């Protein structure tokens, strides 16, 4: 079972087209193994991206160096998934 320990999800808010282009560049860097939940397209829509633990620092450094604003949407994805799994198990038990 694949785990997502240490994976973070960032919400990135772009201010202009230039920043959107920077994110599109980031998207093309396959070695980072980023999973864009909402792709960079226009400044009006925030971008959400899941970042594997090994790439978190690189991506944050990139964003900060470009002055692109971001916030942490999910601190540790596996915590959320564990909670969800627990909820499902409890719900199944209740039904039985």
């Amino acid at each position: 079972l694949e785990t997502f320990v240490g994976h973070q999800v960032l919400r990135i808010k772009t201010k202009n087209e230039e920043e959107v282009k920077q994110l599109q560049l980031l998207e093309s860097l396959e070695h980072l193994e980023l999973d864009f939940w909402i792709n960079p397209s226009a400044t009006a829509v925030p971008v959400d991206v899941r970042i594997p633990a090994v790439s978190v620092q690189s991506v944050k450094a990139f964003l900060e160096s470009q002055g692109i604003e971001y916030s942490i949407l999910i601190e540790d994805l596996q915590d959320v998934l564990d909670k969800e799994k627990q909820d499902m198990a409890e719900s199944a038990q209740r039904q039985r």
Partner: protein
Amino acid sequence: SGSFDFGAYHTLDDINSELDHLVSEYSFVEKIQIGESYEKRPLYVLKFSTGGSNRPAIWLDAGIHSREWVTQASALWIANKIASDYGTDASITSLLDKMDLFLLPVANPDGFVYTHTSNRMWRKTRSKIPGSICVGVDPNRNWDAGFGEAGASGNSCSETYHGPYPNSEPEVKSIVDFVKSHGNIKAFVSIHSYSQLLLYPYGYTETPVPDQQELHEVSAKAVAALSSLYGTKYKYGSIITTIYRASGGTIDWTYNQGIKYSFTFELRDTGRYGFLLPAKQIVPTAEETWLALKVIMEHTRDNMY
């Protein structure tokens, strides 16, 4: 048993059992199989029909991106709502007296099972690509509408890989074949999550659809109805102007097939969990989505073309 918990996430087996339960409870609900997935799982559609043959119809599907669990869960709540409201709710009764309704609650069952067993974050199909170490195609880039153009990836490892050719995915081909053979579908709504959007074509081109004004007005009404329940804020517009260029998308194809009322939902992300929406938000999400769906369905019923 009637004990199904609509406010919880369920496995594919549980969902299929609940479909059988709905069929057993309501005489006008039928379960039909429109095809099978790459891994040979049946694609089940609930057909709501109160009579007549080849009536004009409305299509709803959910879960084409498997990890968007709130969509499959909402579809089940909606199925139960439609069935239980017929005969008591004037709007649904008049709709089903005139039209049929088809609901595909799990459009990507292979991916859905995979999200339960291996990788909760899986979004694509599970088809194997010859010559590639990566698996799966984005089924919302695999339709024959601007296929392979900008707004989809040719890299089979990408989350937005468009696949080797249009309709290469049996999950997509099954819907395409069904829509074509039915020939009288008047509205097509595909349910995704998340980001709180109601979208209409196009995604592959900036050219506005000929019916843009009407679709925009319907969207505005639908979003107003949705927001009236819990204040959830939605944006609406064409795919390309509201989110981003996306080629090979579902509703671009359906619109080009002549299904004017083609929409896609991106359900709520209140709680900032994205498609990892906590189970306690399933019912509120379904309830508010239902209000918007009703607007679209009523508009379709009252503006037959």
